[in-house]
């Protein structure tokens, strides 16, 4: 076999990750939902890609882009992990402009050769191809929140519409967002304690916004508002949100996001409760 052909063949085989997408916005939208820090860690398996962003060792956001979203998705290794600058990645993905032009789609082919190699992006729109190489970084350990569904105490699924406004109007002078979930009144309450005074937002359990209300025990937890505020990005895109707390007061927010093609993706936020409260309480 001639050397040249051999090399080419090798190269095509060498990519440990190849993913193609007809509409790059299906990917960029969901990545934007977790874009609150510069860097993200990507895990890829046969099932899809998980992109994780963390902050302050207290909050973690995961975007799940399942293989079905991609038109082509090949993973040669069992799993691939790398860290990448998410800002740069998003900039590249929207290199043809972030607002969609009607009738034109940007197609994407994403290749990764393996550890130590850059992530290659081939973006095509209207016959113009852009090649981006983004250097990957040493993967970092991600937090394990050990959020086990068996430990879930309270769970609420809401139409995102009902929370959207609440989150966008959060009193940011308040340091914390207090979430009360209870089988009795006030059922589900979001409270802030700002300079101007406190405000409470109550959702009755029989509200039409409430898809599921499964609360076993009254839980009042406070979360740093600065850590939760970024989740608004995901909230805005989502159609439903599941709010769960476990026995330690850890919060899990799962957002169901419908992309332009009607496929469903999930974005998940985990957040640790604020311990300050406990000190003041006792």
């Amino acid at each position: 076999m001639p050397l040249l052909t051999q090399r080419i063949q090798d190269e095509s085989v060498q990519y440990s990750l190849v993913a193609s997408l007809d509409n790059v916005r299906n990917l960029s939208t969901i990545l934007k939902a977790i874009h609150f820090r510069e860097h993200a860690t990507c895990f890829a398996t046969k099932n899809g890609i998980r992109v994780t962003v963390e902050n302050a060792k207290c909050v973690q956001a995961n975007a799940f882009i399942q293989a079905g979203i991609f038109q082509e998705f090949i993973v040669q290794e069992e799993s691939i992990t790398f860290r990448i600058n998410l800002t740069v990645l998003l900039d590249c993905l929207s290199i043809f402009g972030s607002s969609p032009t009607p009738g034109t789609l940007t197609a994407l082919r994403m290749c990764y050769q393996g550890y130590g190699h850059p992530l290659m992006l081939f973006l095509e729109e209207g016959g113009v191809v852009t090649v981006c190489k983004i250097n990957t970084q040493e993967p970092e350990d991600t937090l394990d929140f050990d959020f086990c569904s068996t430990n879930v105490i309270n769970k609420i699924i809401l139409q995102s519409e009902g929370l959207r406004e609440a989150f966008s109007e959060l009193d940011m002078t308040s340091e914390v967002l207090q979430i009360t979930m209870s089988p009795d009144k006030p059922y589900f309450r979001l409270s802030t304690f700002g300079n101007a005074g406190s405000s409470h937002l109550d959702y009755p359990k029989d509200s039409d916004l409430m898809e599921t209300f499964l609360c076993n025990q009254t839980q009042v937890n406070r979360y740093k508002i600065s850590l939760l505020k970024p989740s608004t990005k995901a909230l805005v895109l989502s159609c439903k949100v599941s709010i769960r707390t476990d026995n330690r007061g850890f919060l899990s927010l799962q957002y169901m996001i419908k992309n332009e093609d009607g496929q469903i993706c999930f974005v998940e936020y985990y957040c640790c409760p604020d311990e300050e409260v406990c000190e003041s309480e006792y």
Partner: protein
Amino acid sequence: MGTWLPAFESLASTARAGVPRREVPRRWRGVCRRLRGQSSGWRGRGQAGPACRHQPSPSSCWCPGVRAPRGLRRAEAKGSAGVGEAGVRLWSARCPLRPRTCAAADRCGTAWDSRGPRGLRALEEPVRLSCGTPSHGLRAPRPRRRPPPGLACPGGLHPTGCVLGKAVHSLSRIGDELYLEPMEEGLSLRTVNSSRSAYACFLFAPLFFQQYQAATPGQDPLHCKILMKSFLSVFRSLAMLEKTVETCCISLSGRSSRLVVQLHCRYGVRKTHNLAFQDCESLQAVFDPASCPYKLCAPARVLGEAVLPFPLALAEVTLGVGAGRRVILRSYQEDEADSSLKAMVTEMSLGEDDFQQLRVREGVAVTFCLKEFRGLLSFAESVNLSLSVHFDTPGRPAIFTVEDSTLDGHFVLATLSEPDPHSLGLGSLEPRRPEPRLQAHSTPHQDDFASDDMDSYMITMETSGGSEAPWARPSGSPSPGPQPPCSPAPPSEDEDEDEAEPTTVPGTPPPKKFRSLFFGSVLTPMRSPQGPSSVLAEDSDGEG
């Protein structure tokens, strides 16, 4: 991710009781478990693939997860701050701003609640019940009413919360603090700007509300002052307010020191804002529209459209009547030096026909701040009311009023004391009076001096950044005691010492040649045996 599957399954089928447990075997590590859960979620969505889709072995390449810091579990919550005892309880509802025609009919009843709507109900479209009718023990909010198609209601109906919100928005263009005063004759919202050159007041009659209860007889009426920002945050998004809020309930209790604003929204969502407020004296400006010789009145829309072309950055506008009794609005140029920089002058000329009333001599013009004027205009436009402008000679405050059977709005804006007579090209203006005519209630000149001192003192305090200062306002009639710590007035270009402006404090609205209005504090008779102190509605020309 595992919980999505049962969660959404349960949506499709009948609700499953209890939290679903044990979706994933515990032995898997967090990261992998999550990914596995994810895959099961995909299956749930109808993705092809058997349940046993191969998972990556956890051990091979997944980094062991770092434990997240553990937060202690919290015990039971403290009782949240509830609604305070009802010192004053104001209930507003989605009662519309009624057209005048039906307002008269309502008059017979003591409250809107009791008569008005019922009389109208027959005419109304079917009541639109919002979903998720709140089931709280409190008075249930009324279903939203639609305008009766038969009755002409200019501008459609506005839920009171919305009208209230719009009023707050227009007030927020003026001052940083909102004075809220529940009185027998209604709820008054007032504000004054930091340089005291603008004052605004809205009075919402009890009929405006679905239910209105001022202080019980014998009780000290409450005056409260809250930060505009915090009150505004309640009504921040007017579009949202219009769309989702069904009832707004405001209650004020002296004991809890909290102003409680409750918004009952769609889907039974209830927002409760407990706002901190300060006890304060009543803010009162003394002005009398009747004393102004000139008056013009026009639908707010006419004036609103007239100010639309003016640049947003424009500070002042001159309003006057030119030849042919045309009303002229013109952007105000500060002086010759500046006019080269601002090359554009915008002028709008309105015919007499557009005005409902025009009682102004030709050649008369006043200049006032546009921002505040826009604030009132946008309010008046949104409730589709007519705006009356009362004014006098330049330098004396102009009074802008909107009136309805249930509400009343007054904006008092200082006018430039020395408009360029040629600026409007209006021909000869009345020569400016060197001494402004004293109003009947104005105090002797000596007192003016004292008040002005106090005024500038207060302005300095309010803008010096001391948070205590604005609250620690001297009460009662101003004493000449504290001398103004501010620097003496900068030398004025006016040859007339009379016109020297008080002090220029950074951050205050454009002092220019505006006479600042002085508002003394009026104590309630209970607290102040002397009774209300005399106040001026115009600058007292301290240096004079």
